[in-house]
């Protein structure tokens, strides 16, 4: 569908009639100001929360480093380099061609990354629900870079995995904004997001080893 963007009228406004009809999409009624205010006022009387992080740096940084290495292997084999293919076969088991090897290496890297992300999010959630200090953005950004590399990989074909990685990226971006943007995204907004997409459960399901995916030759 994106090829439509090359049409000459792609940047021109829509027909005024369509704009008028679009304005009726989810057309807002007057805001119920008086009904909404009491809950806001009550919340203002409660003390604010802060976030404290302790284990995030310890966990995320080494994981990100491992992931970057694994991803590099994945790209290497995805390019069809015969030497790289041979090395990867030794590492992961007997597979038929470079595409399969690339897929296996990619899957291993993705699993490793998702394990890191899962640990990171679990720590974040726990800290956010208790109280704490400012987030460790260095590790957040390491994970973001790794996530982006995985999404950009030519081996990223599994739509379910892509969807999961996109959700991971969205939440990492929100977390990364916490210290840099004041409170553009509140930590509890992020934990709400975690819950809304059931991210931790999906990550655990994704990284759970399946017998079919286990490399041959491994007992």
């Amino acid at each position, binding site marked *: 569908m994106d090829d439509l963007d090359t049409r000459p009228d792609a940047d021109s406004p829509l027909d005024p009639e369509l704009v008028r009809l679009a304005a*009726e999409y989810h057309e807002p009624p007057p805001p119920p100001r008086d009904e909404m205010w009491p809950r806001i006022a009550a919340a*203002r009387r409660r003390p604010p929360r802060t976030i404290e992080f302790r284990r995030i740096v310890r966990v995320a940084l080494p994981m990100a480093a491992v992931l970057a290495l694994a991803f590099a292997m994945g790209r290497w084999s995805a390019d069809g380099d015969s030497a790289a293919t041979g090395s990867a076969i030794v590492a992961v088991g007997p597979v038929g061609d470079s595409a399969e090897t690339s897929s296996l290496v990619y899957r291993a890297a993705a699993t490793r990354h998702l394990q890191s992300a899962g640990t990171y999010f679990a720590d974040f959630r726990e800290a956010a629900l208790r109280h704490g200090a400012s987030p460790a953005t260095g590790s957040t950004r390491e994970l973001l870079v790794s996530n982006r590399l995985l999404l950009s990989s030519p081996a990223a074909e599994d739509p379910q995995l892509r969807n999961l990685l996109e959700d991971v990226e969205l939440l990492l971006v929100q977390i990364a904004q916490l210290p840099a943007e004041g409170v553009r995204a509140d930590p509890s907004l992020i934990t709400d997001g975690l819950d809304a997409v059931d991210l931790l459960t999906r990550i655990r399901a994704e990284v759970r080893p399946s017998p079919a995916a286990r490399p041959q030759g491994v007992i």
Partner: protein
Amino acid sequence: MYDAHVDRVWRLVYRIVGDADQAADCVQETFIRAFSRLASFRGESSLATWIGSIAITTALNAVRSLKRRGARVVSIDDAPEPGAEPRNSDPDLKQRLHAAIDALPKGYRTVFLMHDVEGYTHEEIGAALSIASGTSKAQLSRARARLRSVLGAFAPES
């Protein structure tokens, strides 16, 4: 702050979630978070933009939650066929257009609603969504292109 911004926040959130109860919840959450974090607001953007970014995050989280519960899922396959009807002859045009907006990817739909419906600038959208204004423009172009594709004969002829 509430009096000054609640109308704009309400309109934006309602456009995104499309439900009065959900919108009210989101607006309340938005202002609760804004008040609790007001001391850390650094003035790098306008207060309206800052509140808007909180509102959008809250609203998109609500939509994701609704989507997971299957309450508001519209597939692109459910959108009407491109160019199916001639201009101004379809009494269901509004319904078709709204279905097409529903079928837009979340990012495209948000930018389209903010820009073409609510009148936000690309700079405001970029600040609120934490994207570059160029990205906002690109997403708007793609949203319009998809809507034109679905509604065929209603695309401007220029």
